[in-house]
Protein backbone atom coordinates (compact mmCIF):
# COMPACT_ATOMS: atom_id res chain seq x y z
CA UNK A 1 0.00 0.00 0.00
CA UNK A 2 1.53 3.28 -1.01
CA UNK A 3 1.24 5.79 1.79
CA UNK A 4 -0.60 8.94 0.87
CA UNK A 5 1.28 12.19 1.30
CA UNK A 6 -1.06 14.64 2.95
CA UNK A 7 1.61 17.31 3.23
CA UNK A 8 2.25 16.57 6.89
CA UNK A 9 3.25 13.57 9.01
CA UNK A 10 2.24 12.41 12.43
CA UNK A 11 4.47 14.30 14.88
CA UNK A 12 6.54 11.95 16.99
CA UNK A 13 5.50 12.16 20.61
CA UNK A 14 7.97 14.02 22.82
CA UNK A 15 6.94 11.92 25.76
CA UNK A 16 9.54 9.63 27.36
CA UNK A 17 7.41 6.53 27.47
CA UNK A 18 8.92 4.26 30.08
CA UNK A 19 6.23 1.69 29.33
CA UNK A 20 7.56 1.29 25.84
CA UNK A 21 11.22 2.20 26.07
CA UNK A 22 13.48 -0.78 26.19
CA UNK A 23 15.67 -0.21 29.24
CA UNK A 24 17.93 -3.18 28.67
CA UNK A 25 20.86 -1.13 27.39
CA UNK A 26 20.27 1.46 30.04
CA UNK A 27 20.38 -1.24 32.72
CA UNK A 28 23.58 -2.64 31.25
CA UNK A 29 25.16 0.79 31.31
CA UNK A 30 24.15 1.37 34.90
CA UNK A 31 25.39 -2.05 35.91
CA UNK A 32 28.81 -1.22 34.54
CA UNK A 33 28.80 2.34 35.86
CA UNK A 34 26.48 2.45 38.89
CA UNK A 35 27.86 5.83 39.93
CA UNK A 36 26.01 7.38 37.01
CA UNK A 37 22.85 7.04 39.09
CA UNK A 38 24.30 9.50 41.59
CA UNK A 39 24.10 12.35 39.08
CA UNK A 40 22.15 15.23 40.58
CA UNK A 41 21.91 17.05 37.29
CA UNK A 42 23.85 20.11 38.42
CA UNK A 43 25.08 20.68 34.88
CA UNK A 44 28.67 21.52 35.79
CA UNK A 45 29.88 19.00 33.21
CA UNK A 46 27.86 20.63 30.48
CA UNK A 47 28.90 24.12 31.48
CA UNK A 48 32.59 23.29 31.33
CA UNK A 49 32.27 21.22 28.17
CA UNK A 50 34.18 22.64 25.24
CA UNK A 51 32.16 20.67 22.74
CA UNK A 52 29.01 21.84 24.52
CA UNK A 53 30.02 25.43 24.12
CA UNK A 54 30.66 24.97 20.42
CA UNK A 55 27.70 22.76 19.58
CA UNK A 56 24.37 21.76 21.02
CA UNK A 57 26.01 18.79 22.74
CA UNK A 58 24.71 18.44 26.27
CA UNK A 59 26.36 15.63 28.15
CA UNK A 60 23.97 15.78 31.10
CA UNK A 61 20.93 15.61 28.88
CA UNK A 62 22.23 12.85 26.65
CA UNK A 63 23.22 10.52 29.47
CA UNK A 64 19.98 11.23 31.29
CA UNK A 65 18.01 10.38 28.16
CA UNK A 66 20.02 7.21 27.71
CA UNK A 67 19.24 6.24 31.28
CA UNK A 68 15.57 6.66 30.40
CA UNK A 69 15.90 4.38 27.40
CA UNK A 70 15.99 7.16 24.80
CA UNK A 71 18.88 5.96 22.70
CA UNK A 72 18.09 7.65 19.44
CA UNK A 73 20.95 9.89 18.42
CA UNK A 74 22.86 9.39 21.67
CA UNK A 75 25.83 7.81 19.92
CA UNK A 76 26.11 10.66 17.44
CA UNK A 77 25.81 13.19 20.25
CA UNK A 78 28.48 11.49 22.34
CA UNK A 79 30.71 11.53 19.30
CA UNK A 80 30.87 15.32 19.61
CA UNK A 81 32.78 14.82 22.85
CA UNK A 82 36.54 15.29 22.62
CA UNK A 83 37.17 13.24 25.76
CA UNK A 84 39.32 16.04 27.21
CA UNK A 85 38.11 15.19 30.70
CA UNK A 86 37.33 18.62 32.13
CA UNK A 87 33.88 17.39 33.07
CA UNK A 88 35.40 14.70 35.22
CA UNK A 89 37.37 17.31 37.11
CA UNK A 90 34.29 19.37 37.99
CA UNK A 91 31.76 16.65 38.75
CA UNK A 92 30.74 17.07 42.41
CA UNK A 93 29.57 13.47 42.53
CA UNK A 94 32.86 12.08 41.30
CA UNK A 95 31.36 10.40 38.26
CA UNK A 96 33.83 8.95 35.78
CA UNK A 97 32.35 11.00 32.96
CA UNK A 98 34.91 10.01 30.35
CA UNK A 99 34.19 6.41 31.14
CA UNK A 100 30.48 7.16 30.72
CA UNK A 101 31.03 8.61 27.27
CA UNK A 102 33.01 5.58 26.17
CA UNK A 103 30.58 3.18 27.76
CA UNK A 104 27.53 4.73 26.12
CA UNK A 105 29.27 4.77 22.78
CA UNK A 106 30.23 1.16 23.19
CA UNK A 107 26.75 0.06 24.20
CA UNK A 108 24.91 2.11 21.61
CA UNK A 109 27.40 1.82 18.79
CA UNK A 110 25.25 -0.67 16.93
CA UNK A 111 22.18 1.54 16.98
Amino acid at each position, binding site marked *: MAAINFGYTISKPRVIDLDRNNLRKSDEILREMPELQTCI*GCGACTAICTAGNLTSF*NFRKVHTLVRRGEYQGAYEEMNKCMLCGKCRL*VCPRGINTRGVVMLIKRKLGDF
Partner: protein
Amino acid sequence: MKKRIIVIGGGVAGMQTALRLAEQGLEPVIVEKEPELGGKLRGWHVLFPTFTPAEEVLTDLRRRVNESGIEALTSTEVVALTPRSVTLADGRVLTGDAVVLASGSTLFDASIKEEYGYGIYDNVFTSADVERMFNEGRVSKTDGTAPRRIAFLHCVGSRDEKVCQQHCSKVCCVTGVKQAIEMKRLFPEADVFNFYMDIRMFGPGYEEMYREAQQTYNIHFVRGRISEASPTIDGRVQIKAEDTLTGRPLRMSVDMLILLIGMRANDDNASLAGGPGLERARSGFMRPRNLFLGNIASNVDGIFYAGTVTAPKTIGESLNEATAAADAAARYVGA
Protein backbone atom coordinates in the same frame (compact mmCIF):
# COMPACT_ATOMS: atom_id res chain seq x y z
CA MET B 1 31.47 20.97 96.61
CA LYS B 2 30.07 21.89 93.19
CA LYS B 3 30.59 19.46 90.34
CA ARG B 4 32.77 20.96 87.63
CA ILE B 5 32.02 20.50 83.95
CA ILE B 6 34.44 21.53 81.23
CA VAL B 7 32.86 23.05 78.13
CA ILE B 8 35.20 23.01 75.15
CA GLY B 9 34.36 25.86 72.81
CA GLY B 10 32.90 29.26 73.57
CA GLY B 11 30.60 29.74 70.63
CA VAL B 12 26.85 29.91 70.98
CA ALA B 13 26.63 26.24 71.84
CA GLY B 14 29.39 26.47 74.43
CA MET B 15 28.00 29.60 76.07
CA GLN B 16 24.47 28.22 76.20
CA THR B 17 25.72 24.94 77.67
CA ALA B 18 27.62 26.79 80.37
CA LEU B 19 24.64 29.00 81.17
CA ARG B 20 22.32 26.04 81.51
CA LEU B 21 24.84 24.20 83.71
CA ALA B 22 25.23 27.24 85.93
CA GLU B 23 21.45 27.48 86.22
CA GLN B 24 21.42 23.94 87.53
CA GLY B 25 23.95 24.84 90.20
CA LEU B 26 26.96 23.28 88.59
CA GLU B 27 30.32 24.87 87.94
CA PRO B 28 31.02 25.13 84.21
CA VAL B 29 34.31 26.30 82.79
CA ILE B 30 34.55 27.37 79.17
CA VAL B 31 37.76 26.77 77.21
CA GLU B 32 37.93 28.92 74.08
CA LYS B 33 40.87 29.06 71.70
CA GLU B 34 40.01 32.54 70.37
CA PRO B 35 40.67 35.65 72.46
CA GLU B 36 36.94 36.22 73.03
CA LEU B 37 33.74 34.22 73.30
CA GLY B 38 31.29 34.04 70.42
CA GLY B 39 32.65 31.59 67.88
CA LYS B 40 31.47 31.81 64.30
CA LEU B 41 28.66 34.16 65.23
CA ARG B 42 31.16 36.95 65.80
CA GLY B 43 31.66 37.50 62.11
CA TRP B 44 28.00 37.26 61.23
CA HIS B 45 25.72 40.15 60.41
CA VAL B 46 22.10 39.03 60.61
CA LEU B 47 20.48 35.64 61.09
CA PHE B 48 17.99 33.92 58.82
CA PRO B 49 15.08 33.88 58.45
CA THR B 50 14.19 36.85 60.65
CA PHE B 51 17.16 39.10 59.89
CA THR B 52 17.83 39.32 63.60
CA PRO B 53 21.21 40.98 64.15
CA ALA B 54 23.76 38.37 65.22
CA GLU B 55 25.12 40.94 67.63
CA GLU B 56 21.84 40.88 69.50
CA VAL B 57 22.07 37.16 70.22
CA LEU B 58 25.77 37.37 70.95
CA THR B 59 25.56 40.32 73.33
CA ASP B 60 22.79 38.71 75.29
CA LEU B 61 24.65 35.42 75.67
CA ARG B 62 27.89 37.16 76.64
CA ARG B 63 26.12 39.37 79.17
CA ARG B 64 24.47 36.40 80.83
CA VAL B 65 27.74 34.46 80.88
CA ASN B 66 29.36 37.45 82.58
CA GLU B 67 26.56 37.91 85.06
CA SER B 68 26.59 34.24 85.99
CA GLY B 69 30.27 34.55 86.79
CA ILE B 70 31.12 31.60 84.60
CA GLU B 71 34.81 30.98 84.32
CA ALA B 72 36.00 31.32 80.71
CA LEU B 73 39.54 30.58 79.64
CA THR B 74 40.05 32.39 76.35
CA SER B 75 43.02 32.05 74.00
CA THR B 76 43.32 28.55 75.34
CA GLU B 77 43.51 25.56 73.11
CA VAL B 78 42.61 22.01 74.04
CA VAL B 79 44.83 19.26 72.67
CA ALA B 80 43.38 16.20 74.37
CA LEU B 81 40.49 15.19 76.55
CA THR B 82 39.13 12.41 78.73
CA PRO B 83 35.70 12.34 80.40
CA ARG B 84 37.22 13.92 83.51
CA SER B 85 39.95 16.16 82.19
CA VAL B 86 41.23 18.20 79.30
CA THR B 87 44.85 18.83 78.39
CA LEU B 88 45.66 22.34 77.20
CA ALA B 89 48.20 23.34 74.58
CA ASP B 90 50.46 24.80 77.26
CA GLY B 91 50.54 21.47 79.06
CA ARG B 92 48.15 22.34 81.87
CA VAL B 93 45.48 19.79 82.72
CA LEU B 94 42.01 20.89 83.78
CA THR B 95 40.05 18.33 85.72
CA GLY B 96 36.29 18.08 86.07
CA ASP B 97 33.47 15.62 86.33
CA ALA B 98 32.33 15.64 82.72
CA VAL B 99 33.15 17.29 79.39
CA VAL B 100 30.87 18.90 76.86
CA LEU B 101 32.51 19.19 73.45
CA ALA B 102 31.14 22.25 71.66
CA SER B 103 34.11 23.00 69.47
CA GLY B 104 32.03 23.63 66.36
CA SER B 105 33.22 23.29 62.83
CA THR B 106 35.45 24.99 60.26
CA LEU B 107 34.38 27.06 57.28
CA PHE B 108 35.44 25.57 53.97
CA ASP B 109 38.42 27.30 52.37
CA ALA B 110 37.05 28.48 49.03
CA SER B 111 40.47 28.87 47.47
CA ILE B 112 40.66 25.08 47.25
CA LYS B 113 38.04 25.29 44.51
CA GLU B 114 40.54 27.05 42.32
CA GLU B 115 38.24 27.20 39.31
CA TYR B 116 36.02 29.70 41.10
CA GLY B 117 38.93 32.11 41.38
CA TYR B 118 38.64 32.96 45.08
CA GLY B 119 41.83 34.72 46.07
CA ILE B 120 42.80 34.97 42.40
CA TYR B 121 40.36 37.44 40.93
CA ASP B 122 38.99 40.57 42.48
CA ASN B 123 35.31 40.44 43.25
CA VAL B 124 35.04 36.82 44.19
CA PHE B 125 33.88 36.61 47.79
CA THR B 126 32.67 34.03 50.25
CA SER B 127 29.47 34.21 52.26
CA ALA B 128 31.60 34.88 55.35
CA ASP B 129 33.25 37.83 53.57
CA VAL B 130 29.83 39.22 52.77
CA GLU B 131 28.69 39.03 56.39
CA ARG B 132 31.85 40.84 57.44
CA MET B 133 31.34 43.47 54.78
CA PHE B 134 27.82 44.06 56.01
CA ASN B 135 29.09 44.38 59.56
CA GLU B 136 31.71 46.86 58.48
CA GLY B 137 29.13 48.71 56.44
CA ARG B 138 31.29 48.52 53.32
CA VAL B 139 29.53 46.29 50.87
CA SER B 140 30.90 46.95 47.43
CA LYS B 141 33.09 45.66 44.68
CA THR B 142 36.80 45.64 45.40
CA ASP B 143 37.16 49.04 43.73
CA GLY B 144 34.52 50.49 46.06
CA THR B 145 31.75 50.85 43.49
CA ALA B 146 28.28 49.41 43.81
CA PRO B 147 27.64 46.06 42.12
CA ARG B 148 25.00 45.90 39.43
CA ARG B 149 24.98 42.19 39.00
CA ILE B 150 25.65 39.69 41.72
CA ALA B 151 25.81 35.90 41.53
CA PHE B 152 25.66 33.53 44.46
CA LEU B 153 26.94 30.00 44.03
CA HIS B 154 25.53 27.37 46.36
CA CYS B 155 27.28 24.20 47.57
CA VAL B 156 30.89 25.40 47.57
CA GLY B 157 32.70 22.79 49.61
CA SER B 158 29.52 20.87 50.24
CA ARG B 159 28.21 17.85 48.37
CA ASP B 160 31.43 17.81 46.41
CA GLU B 161 33.47 14.64 46.05
CA LYS B 162 36.22 16.65 44.44
CA VAL B 163 37.07 18.27 47.76
CA CYS B 164 36.14 15.18 49.73
CA GLN B 165 33.14 16.86 51.34
CA GLN B 166 30.19 14.61 50.67
CA HIS B 167 27.81 16.04 53.21
CA CYS B 168 25.29 18.84 52.81
CA SER B 169 26.15 21.85 54.95
CA LYS B 170 22.47 22.54 55.44
CA VAL B 171 22.57 26.26 56.22
CA CYS B 172 24.16 27.64 53.05
CA CYS B 173 20.97 27.44 50.95
CA VAL B 174 19.07 29.61 53.34
CA THR B 175 22.10 31.84 53.90
CA GLY B 176 22.32 32.35 50.16
CA VAL B 177 18.70 33.40 49.98
CA LYS B 178 19.12 35.66 52.99
CA GLN B 179 22.22 37.34 51.63
CA ALA B 180 20.59 37.71 48.23
CA ILE B 181 17.75 39.60 49.88
CA GLU B 182 20.17 41.74 51.88
CA MET B 183 22.05 42.57 48.70
CA LYS B 184 18.86 43.42 46.93
CA ARG B 185 17.81 45.66 49.81
CA LEU B 186 21.11 47.44 49.68
CA PHE B 187 21.31 47.61 45.90
CA PRO B 188 17.73 47.62 44.64
CA GLU B 189 18.95 48.24 41.09
CA ALA B 190 21.19 45.21 41.05
CA ASP B 191 20.27 41.89 39.50
CA VAL B 192 20.88 39.01 41.83
CA PHE B 193 21.26 35.42 40.64
CA ASN B 194 21.49 32.27 42.73
CA PHE B 195 23.06 29.22 41.08
CA TYR B 196 21.94 26.09 42.89
CA MET B 197 21.82 22.31 42.57
CA ASP B 198 18.96 21.86 45.03
CA ILE B 199 17.36 24.44 47.27
CA ARG B 200 16.83 22.92 50.70
CA MET B 201 14.48 25.06 52.76
CA PHE B 202 13.91 22.87 55.77
CA GLY B 203 13.12 25.22 58.64
CA PRO B 204 10.24 27.37 59.82
CA GLY B 205 9.91 30.44 57.67
CA TYR B 206 12.63 29.42 55.26
CA GLU B 207 10.44 28.40 52.36
CA GLU B 208 8.48 31.61 52.87
CA MET B 209 11.70 33.59 52.71
CA TYR B 210 12.66 31.79 49.51
CA ARG B 211 9.33 32.69 47.99
CA GLU B 212 9.72 36.26 49.13
CA ALA B 213 13.15 36.40 47.53
CA GLN B 214 11.64 35.33 44.23
CA GLN B 215 8.41 37.23 44.38
CA THR B 216 9.18 40.42 46.24
CA TYR B 217 12.85 40.83 45.51
CA ASN B 218 12.86 39.41 42.01
CA ILE B 219 15.94 37.34 42.72
CA HIS B 220 16.71 34.93 39.91
CA PHE B 221 17.32 31.29 40.62
CA VAL B 222 19.22 29.29 38.02
CA ARG B 223 19.43 25.55 38.47
CA GLY B 224 22.98 24.75 37.58
CA ARG B 225 26.36 24.58 39.20
CA ILE B 226 28.96 27.10 38.10
CA SER B 227 31.89 25.21 36.65
CA GLU B 228 34.43 27.95 36.17
CA ALA B 229 35.01 31.64 36.62
CA SER B 230 37.37 33.86 34.71
CA PRO B 231 38.17 37.57 34.79
CA THR B 232 36.83 39.95 32.18
CA ILE B 233 38.68 42.86 30.74
CA ASP B 234 36.78 45.34 32.93
CA GLY B 235 37.52 43.56 36.20
CA ARG B 236 34.30 41.66 36.43
CA VAL B 237 33.97 37.92 36.73
CA GLN B 238 32.63 35.78 33.94
CA ILE B 239 30.95 32.62 35.09
CA LYS B 240 29.86 29.55 33.20
CA ALA B 241 27.12 27.17 34.19
CA GLU B 242 24.53 25.06 32.54
CA ASP B 243 21.00 26.29 32.82
CA THR B 244 19.88 22.74 33.39
CA LEU B 245 16.19 23.55 33.13
CA THR B 246 16.63 24.68 29.55
CA GLY B 247 19.51 22.33 28.89
CA ARG B 248 21.78 25.02 27.49
CA PRO B 249 25.11 26.38 28.59
CA LEU B 250 24.86 29.76 30.20
CA ARG B 251 27.47 32.40 30.69
CA MET B 252 27.30 35.82 32.28
CA SER B 253 29.54 38.46 33.71
CA VAL B 254 28.92 39.59 37.24
CA ASP B 255 30.29 42.32 39.44
CA MET B 256 30.43 40.09 42.47
CA LEU B 257 30.58 36.32 42.68
CA ILE B 258 29.72 35.13 46.16
CA LEU B 259 30.58 31.57 47.10
CA LEU B 260 28.33 30.03 49.75
CA ILE B 261 30.93 28.08 51.64
CA GLY B 262 30.01 25.02 53.63
CA MET B 263 31.01 23.75 57.02
CA ARG B 264 33.57 21.02 57.39
CA ALA B 265 34.74 19.05 60.37
CA ASN B 266 37.51 20.61 62.43
CA ASP B 267 40.94 19.29 61.63
CA ASP B 268 41.59 18.57 65.30
CA ASN B 269 38.50 16.35 65.63
CA ALA B 270 40.72 13.42 64.70
CA SER B 271 43.29 14.04 67.40
CA LEU B 272 40.68 14.91 70.04
CA ALA B 273 38.76 11.75 69.24
CA GLY B 274 41.87 9.61 69.48
CA GLY B 275 42.40 9.75 73.25
CA PRO B 276 39.02 8.79 74.63
CA GLY B 277 38.10 6.75 71.52
CA LEU B 278 35.30 8.96 70.23
CA GLU B 279 33.63 7.78 67.05
CA ARG B 280 33.60 10.00 64.02
CA ALA B 281 31.41 9.97 60.95
CA ARG B 282 32.89 9.59 57.46
CA SER B 283 32.55 13.33 57.04
CA GLY B 284 34.94 13.82 59.94
CA PHE B 285 32.30 15.22 62.27
CA MET B 286 31.83 13.54 65.65
CA ARG B 287 29.26 10.75 65.62
CA PRO B 288 26.64 10.97 68.39
CA ARG B 289 25.81 7.80 70.27
CA ASN B 290 22.40 7.63 68.66
CA LEU B 291 20.72 10.04 66.27
CA PHE B 292 17.36 9.81 68.00
CA LEU B 293 17.63 9.10 71.70
CA GLY B 294 21.22 10.10 72.27
CA ASN B 295 22.18 12.79 69.80
CA ILE B 296 23.95 14.95 72.39
CA ALA B 297 25.84 12.02 73.93
CA SER B 298 29.07 10.62 72.59
CA ASN B 299 29.88 6.94 72.56
CA VAL B 300 32.02 7.58 75.66
CA ASP B 301 30.30 8.11 79.03
CA GLY B 302 30.95 11.55 80.43
CA ILE B 303 31.61 13.28 77.09
CA PHE B 304 28.71 15.16 75.53
CA TYR B 305 28.24 17.07 72.28
CA ALA B 306 26.59 20.39 71.53
CA GLY B 307 26.36 22.28 68.29
CA THR B 308 28.08 21.80 64.97
CA VAL B 309 30.79 19.53 66.27
CA THR B 310 28.52 16.66 65.17
CA ALA B 311 27.10 18.10 61.95
CA PRO B 312 26.24 21.41 60.31
CA LYS B 313 23.43 23.12 62.22
CA THR B 314 21.62 26.42 62.52
CA ILE B 315 22.13 28.77 65.46
CA GLY B 316 18.73 27.81 66.87
CA GLU B 317 19.46 24.11 66.68
CA SER B 318 22.87 24.63 68.31
CA LEU B 319 21.27 26.53 71.19
CA ASN B 320 18.68 23.80 71.73
CA GLU B 321 21.30 21.10 71.66
CA ALA B 322 23.39 23.03 74.13
CA THR B 323 20.52 23.02 76.63
CA ALA B 324 19.94 19.33 76.10
CA ALA B 325 23.64 18.54 76.40
CA ALA B 326 23.92 20.54 79.62
CA ASP B 327 20.95 18.69 81.10
CA ALA B 328 22.41 15.33 80.10
CA ALA B 329 25.78 16.27 81.60
CA ALA B 330 24.10 17.44 84.79
CA ARG B 331 22.21 14.17 85.06
CA TYR B 332 25.46 12.32 84.49
CA VAL B 333 27.31 14.05 87.35
CA GLY B 334 24.30 13.48 89.58
CA ALA B 335 23.18 17.05 90.11
